[in-house]
């Protein structure tokens, strides 16, 4: 859990700050695509995005190994570039990520895994990051799988 929580709740985020939570995976849902459209429009409207939080199947968005056909948009790549350009944190929930085979180097070492596959600048952290956003007054928007 995030140790920054108590501090954050004492300093509520200013109005107009969004947190986007993505729970739908690319290819099995349109959620990452819709969220990216929303995120771009939010910045264009001078809103701030404090972080993107990937939960459940949404963690697959942070994969470094996805290679869609060259005429299809690579959503992981597009999201990673967007986060880097705009210095926005992208956090994958650690419990969701470990179950679904999405790990960084330190998890790889901790669990003796044969590799790691987290795409920079995504990070892995606990649900406390999400609680932090919700409790600090950020407007949290969820992007679930559709159907």
């Amino acid at each position: 859990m995030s140790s920054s929580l108590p501090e954050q709740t004492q300093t509520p985020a200013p109005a107009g700050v969004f947190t986007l939570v993505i729970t739908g995976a690319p290819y099995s849902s349109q959620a990452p695509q819709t969220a990216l459209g929303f995120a771009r429009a939010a910045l264009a409207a001078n809103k701030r995005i404090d972080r993107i939080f990937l939960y459940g199947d949404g963690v697959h968005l942070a994969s470094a190994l996805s290679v869609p056909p060259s005429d299809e948009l690579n959503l992981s790549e597009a999201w990673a570039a967007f986060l880097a350009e705009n210095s926005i944190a992208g956090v994958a929930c650690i419990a969701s990520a470990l179950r679904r085979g999405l790990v960084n180097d330190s998890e790889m070492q901790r669990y003796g895994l044969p590799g790691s596959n987290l795409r920079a600048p995504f990070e892995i952290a606990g649900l406390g990051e999400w609680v932090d956003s919700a409790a600090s007054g950020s407007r949290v928007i969820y992007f679930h799988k559709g159907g």
Partner: protein
Amino acid sequence: MTPLKTLHILNKPPDHSRYRLCLCAIGPEDGLLLTENGVLAVTWLADINSERCFALAPDLEARGLSPQISSEQIVSFEDMVDMAATAEHVISW
């Protein structure tokens, strides 16, 4: 437009159980924004007679559905951001 009490973002088609759940939770001061396959609701006309029902333009256009809804109800991502920022609450179904 007066700010919405709750903005309901619905991305499920009309045959999805959560679509029906969402329709039960829309109050008189609320707004409904159809996104992704939620925009298929425009073909189920009875469901979209409200003045506070909107649909996201790129999703309508992708599915060839823009002609089936009045242009005042068609919104952009910029509009979506504005609605999401000004509504008192937002629920994503």
